[in-house]
């Protein structure tokens, strides 16, 4: 490091002795605003309640101003810029979540075991899967953030406390707490104390904490984050992916368990004929002779006839039929995702835009063929768009594939999304274009005399024949 002599200033050395007794702010030179800060400290409450103010203009630039440097050059300018960034970060993150008193505040009550024995069956009315066993927070009140979240459990007797209220999954509840849209409460009694039947008594200030305790953000994480696949919890990495997508504006829903996707299977049965015929077609295809020329000598009028004889390796043919391959952990479909759309209801969802699997960056290996094909088989056929026709869109078609799944790789809070698709090169018949070109032919199109070339190939084959 240049200018390293100035070692008595702890902020200018890049090491961080844990026994350091002086904080960077101890140096008055680094803190031109020191006086102002102290003034605020004297008047502690006024300093504190600034932390409840929402500052609407916060952006990444508030915290990181200007260009980054290549390395530390020990100047005051540099250290004060860093200090400013850190102070800005501290200020921004010191904010407490306030729930406006106007209107009904949205509260969630944590009842982890209410539905733990609930047996969910496939809904006959075609409603989406509810995951009711995992729903642990009952929602009281609503606002714009809660409108697409939560499901009511039907079939409760009249007079049951909390009947008709929506229940949230742990990730929904934690996300709402985190964005400051819901208060999470720990109840002191059962559901009946929180939702007594009949007219609710007007809440006095004194009674407020009789029913329960407001849970902090830390408490919400403690209660709602759990291991992978734990009932009534969400794993941290899945939650990070969920909230990342939610912040981007996507609609994210837990994927239904694999075993109940009978609807998809029914659709698959319709495609059974297609599957049968495709296998039959495979059998009837001509098998090349064990020896001799690949392309039989003869007179050929089109390329297609030749290329058909040269097709030795069986090609992958994507089927619209359900393949029923097993998904292998950790590669399973965990979330289904929609781009934000107007026509979306939590009960009747349109076909999802994406199928998402969440894996850990450090613990997971690149998926094996069995794993990836199991994952992709779990998604419905999603072929290229019908308007992508013609030779110009061949790469768009190949890239898009016939089924696809997204894998979100999480490394300690940093997320990377990847898309795996089932590509079918065999479906792209490039050789047909050669014949087409021949017909259009003409020097301007760069077309050679197709017929001549066909002959040439035949001659080559004949020579080959003689050699053998």
């Amino acid at each position: 490091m240049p200018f390293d002599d100035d070692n008595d200033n702890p902020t200018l050395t890049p090491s961080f002795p844990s026994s350091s007794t002086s904080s960077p702010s101890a140096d008055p030179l680094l803190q031109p605003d020191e006086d102002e800060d102290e003034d605020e400290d004297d008047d502690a409450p006024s300093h504190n309640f600034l932390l409840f103010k929402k500052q609407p203009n916060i952006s990444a630039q508030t915290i990181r101003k200007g260009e980054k440097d290549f390395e530390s050059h020990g100047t005051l300018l540099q250290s004060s810029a860093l200090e400013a960034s850190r102070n800005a970060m501290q200020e921004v993150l010191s904010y407490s979540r306030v729930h406006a008193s106007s209107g009904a505040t949205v509260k969630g009550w944590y009842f982890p075991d209410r539905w733990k024995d609930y047996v969910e069956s496939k809904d006959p009315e075609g409603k989406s899967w509810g995951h009711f066993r995992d729903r642990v927070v009952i929602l009281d009140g609503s606002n714009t953030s809660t409108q697409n979240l939560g499901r009511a459990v039907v079939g409760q007797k009249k007079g049951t406390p909390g009947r008709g209220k929506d229940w949230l999954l742990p990730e929904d509840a934690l996300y709402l707490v985190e964005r400051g849209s819901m208060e999470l409460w720990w109840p002191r009694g059962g559901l009946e104390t929180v939702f007594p039947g009949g007219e609710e008594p007007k809440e006095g200030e004194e009674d407020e904490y009789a029913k329960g305790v407001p849970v902090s953000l830390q408490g919400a994480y403690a209660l709602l984050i759990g291991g992978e696949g734990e009932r009534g919890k969400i794993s941290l990495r899945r939650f990070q992916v969920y909230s990342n997508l939610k912040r981007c504006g996507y609609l994210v829903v837990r994927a239904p368990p694999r075993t109940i996707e009978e609807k998809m299977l029914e659709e698959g049965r319709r495609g059974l004929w297609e599957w049968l015929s495709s296998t039959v077609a495979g059998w009837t295809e001509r098998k090349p002779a064990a020896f001799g020329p690949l392309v039989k000598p003869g007179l050929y009028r089109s390329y297609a006839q030749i290329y058909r004889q040269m097709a030795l390796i069986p090609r992958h043919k994507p089927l619209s039929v359900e393949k029923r391959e097993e998904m292998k952990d950790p590669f399973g479909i965990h979330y289904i995702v929609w781009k934000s759309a107007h026509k979306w209801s939590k009960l009747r969802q349109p076909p999802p835009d994406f199928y998402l699997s969440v894996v850990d960056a450090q613990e997971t290996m690149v998926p094996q063929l069995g794993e990836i094909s199991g994952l992709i088989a779990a998604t419905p056929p999603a072929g290229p768009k019908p308007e992508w026709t013609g030779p110009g869109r061949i790469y768009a078609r190949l890239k898009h594939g016939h089924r696809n799944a997204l894998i979100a790789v999480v490394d300690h809070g940093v997320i990377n999304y990847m898309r795996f698709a089932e590509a079918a090169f065999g479906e792209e018949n490039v050789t047909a274009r050669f014949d087409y070109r021949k017909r259009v032919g003409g020097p301007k199109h760069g077309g050679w005399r197709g017929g001549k070339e066909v002959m040439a190939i035949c001659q080559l084959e004949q020579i080959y024949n003689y050699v053998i």
Partner: protein
Amino acid sequence: MTETKKARISRVGGDKYLVFDIEDVMSIRRNHGICAVLTGTMPQNPTQNLFLGLPIELRAEEVKLLVDAGAAYVVDELAEHLTAFGKSREEQQKYLDEVKEKRVLAQRAYDEEKERIRLLHIDKVMAAKKNKEKRKKDGEVGEESSLFSEEQQEQEQEVVKKEKPLPGITPTTSENLVAGMSHVDAVVEVPDHPFYPFYKKMNSRGYFTTPGLRFGGDYSVYPGDPFRFHAHYLANAYGWNEEIPMLDLVTSGRLGTAVKKSFLFGSEQPAPTPEDEGDVRMFCVEWAGM
């Protein structure tokens, strides 16, 4: 500065380590060179992914470093909270008081902000009133009654406001709820991490690290706080006797060059006795333009 308080690291979901207290976050960033990753939604600005909020997620080796340095302790947050919530109301009073106090402060902030905005627009309001009065003088019929009812509405609103309950608050930490609980009981041992010696060496040299996923290594290594500097290296840790395929060096070296970083790799030479610390050797690969 007086003796700094130990940072509280919450272990959730079995093997994830989070820090919620902003004071702790700043102190480990300032004094221990650990910036970790902000992972939470920012309540002030919840529809963006550029700058995130609390909590921060620490790597296991960062946790071990802090605990070994005596700067932090790890708590099984679920067990701690279940005990705390199960307590009587009297025992929770300190926490409830804190929440109450914050609610009053929030109301004050809210009122002040409202007053500020009112003052900001007072000229316009006055002008509008004057206008109305002028029109009233001009003898327009109907204005009088509407003006009267507006005033009445304002009065009514004020009455309603007084009865309004305080705004709710979600505190960021449960500090006062779990305060005084025997931390020793809940303190969790941090398991050894194979990369720990490698990480510790980098940290002791003043380098900051973030997860390597962005650039394709185990770590991205910064020469100082990432607020001010770009990453210089993408780093991989290996075992001392682990064979490193030549191809790894080539791919990682090339990858590093592509993202304008050099590729750093290193390992710990096992110490002769378990008490000693092993020596960590590091190498740096850069593409030579020959």
